[in-house]
């Protein structure tokens, strides 16, 4: 596990960007850049990080950075990887380049899933990082395939009849692992050394790797901007966000949570779940707790851990 004094002092994702105060994604980008091992190109899907870090003529990126569109970060990364291979063969290029595609949950779970699946199947050597703030936060908090059951968004509002999103979150890592890729992991910015270690490990894989990281969003999840890391930590400690990795098909639970905190501690901090605490929607809390329990049980079993 990486230690603080191992990390480079240089900031390749610089301050001055226009992400919101307390934005988890900003912290995640900074940590990602601390894990680089050499020449790197970042491909960024349209989303919060993209719009807030590169308002022309400014940029927060000290690595080469490319934004093409919303749904195609993995496809663009495929083209870059193929190009370096071809250029190397004809002697026009001589260094290995790490390619990191970065997209939010909308750009990954929903509109970008086809491009991601294609790139994983073709086996390009790149790392795909999904920073998951569990809704389309950039366009003003609309539900995505990553939004959890019960959460209120502007397209799954806390209505009188339907209390937030009726559906459940997709299993992104399950989908990625099903492609037979060598490395996939979840992470949380509250466990910085676990995350940075994983980014480095994923870069070292020869082939596609995926990291799915929880990205606390004060604006969209609606909590005080000083509480981002606390929310991210509670997500793990309530077993809402299991932190694990899958290496060559072998599952490993990286952060054990033997005595989970009640899920309500995580939910109560965020106003997107406030309506669930009304007496008429109490049963929704039970549904959500059951989903968390079952998800944890499933992952624990895959990791060979006691539930």
């Amino acid at each position, binding site marked *: 596990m990486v230690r603080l004094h191992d990390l480079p002092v240089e900031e390749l994702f610089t301050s001055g960007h226009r992400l919101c105060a307390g934005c988890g994604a900003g912290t995640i980008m900074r940590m990602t850049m601390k894990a680089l091992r050499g*020449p*790197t*190109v970042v*491909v960024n899907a349209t989303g919060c990080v*993209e*719009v807030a870090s*590169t*308002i*022309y*003529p*400014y*940029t927060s*990126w*000290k*690595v*080469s*950075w*490319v*934004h*093409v*569109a919303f*749904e*195609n970060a*993995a*496809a*663009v*990364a*495929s*083209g*870059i990887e*193929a*190009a*370096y*291979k*071809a*250029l190397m*063969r*004809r002697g*026009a*290029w001589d*260094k290995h*380049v790490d390619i990191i595609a970065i997209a939010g949950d909308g750009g990954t779970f929903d509109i970008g899933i*086809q*491009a991601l*699946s*294609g*790139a994983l*199947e*073709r086996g390009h050597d790149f790392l795909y990082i999904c920073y998951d703030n569990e809704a389309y936060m950039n366009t003003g908090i609309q539900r995505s395939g990553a939004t959890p059951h019960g959460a209120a968004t502007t397209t799954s509002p806390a209505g009188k009849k339907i209390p937030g999103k009726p559906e459940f979150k997709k299993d992104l890592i399950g989908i990625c692992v099903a492609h037979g890729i060598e490395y996939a992991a979840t992470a949380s910015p509250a466990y910085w050394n676990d995350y940075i270690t994983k980014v480095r490990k994923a870069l070292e894989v020869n082939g596609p790797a995926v990291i799915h990281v929880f990205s606390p969003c004060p604006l969209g999840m609606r909590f005080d901007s000083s509480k981002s890391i606390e929310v991210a930590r509670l997500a793990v400690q309530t077993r809402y966000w299991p932190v694990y990795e899958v290496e060559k098909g072998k599952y490993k639970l990286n952060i054990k949570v033997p005595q989970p905190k009640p899920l309500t501690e995580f939910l109560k901090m965020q106003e997107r779940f406030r309506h669930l605490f009304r007496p008429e929607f109490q049963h929704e809390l039970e549904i959500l707790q059951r989903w968390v329990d079952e998800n944890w049980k499933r992952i624990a079993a895959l990791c060979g851990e006691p539930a």
Partner: protein
Amino acid sequence: MARLMGLTGNEAIAYAVKQCNVDVVAAYPITPQTIMVEVISEYVYNGEINAEFVCVESEHSAMSACVGASLTGARVFTATASQGLALMHEMLYIASGLRCPIVMGVANRALSAPLNIHGDHSDMMGSRDCGWIQIYAENAQEAYDWVIQAFKIAEDPRVLLPVSVNIDGFILSHSMEGVNVLDDDEVSRFLPPRRPLITIDPAKPITVGALCLPDYYFEIKFQQIQALREAYNVIREVNKEYESLSGRKYGFIESYAMEDAEAAIVCLGSTAGTAKAVARELRKEGKRVGVVKPWVYRPFPEDDLIRALGDVKVLAVLDRACSFGAPFNALCSDVVATLYRNGKDIKIFNCLYGLGGRDITPSDLRVIFNEALEIAETGKVKEHMKFVGVRE
């Protein structure tokens, strides 16, 4: 030393790509373009070319991968048709906006619905404002020649824009013709491996594709407009250089029998071949008719068109794609705008033809020529928009 090969339009394009030192091909199969992708795959799998073939899961990803590869500094080719081009639509604008000199072969095909796999120009005409240089070939020879020239035009630092080389689906894509091909060495001398000015080289980091707000967006688009204007000069230079290499003369427009023509047909692609044959017959009957075929549709060659028209009195402009609800279809609108801007009072009528691969026959074209001649006589246009060969 030139050699004669029997090639379909698709094969002619694939063969040109093989000779062009292409680095990356990212493509998805679609009728009637499929053979382009198949032949290129064979070249790659047999080790005949050095290129990486990215066999993507959609045309959207094809163009996305092409953009990524092009920004990395690779010479990039893709091919598509119809629905595939429509699916790429978003990415076409990004490829030109990010100034990626990608070359794309398009085997033009109708757009759904109803589903139809045959040739018309609805696909490329639906994307004609995407900022690409757009070329229409009349036969397999022209397709081969234009692909080689297209890379040189696209990659010129004064241009840096993508180019589409269009061939009529099935009519050209699947018809075998004799094609004079150049030697590999000759092509390599004409078109050495790509040397890009700027790439995403990690040693010299750059940010590409930033969010651009109202304070800068317009200027960046204006640079694109200027680049397309500049392409006009570059295309001319490249045509000249290619002529001295191949002996085949290209330009913006091919005119046939226009010197003393009273009436002429303006059309794109393979139809021009039939139109020329019909014009030849009519000339034997003493009728003064000619044909004007724009090779380059974007940038639209206004001056060349005016020069080509000479003292013609009537134009029949043939469109193989419908601009629903518009006063004229696409090609005719451009011709009318050009005449207006140049103060030319030429009678004009628009013929919509060949949708979904409906054949256009020599007798259809004879009727059109005769109607144009009649207008030349009477000075009266009967119908501004005709539908050729449709059961109304």
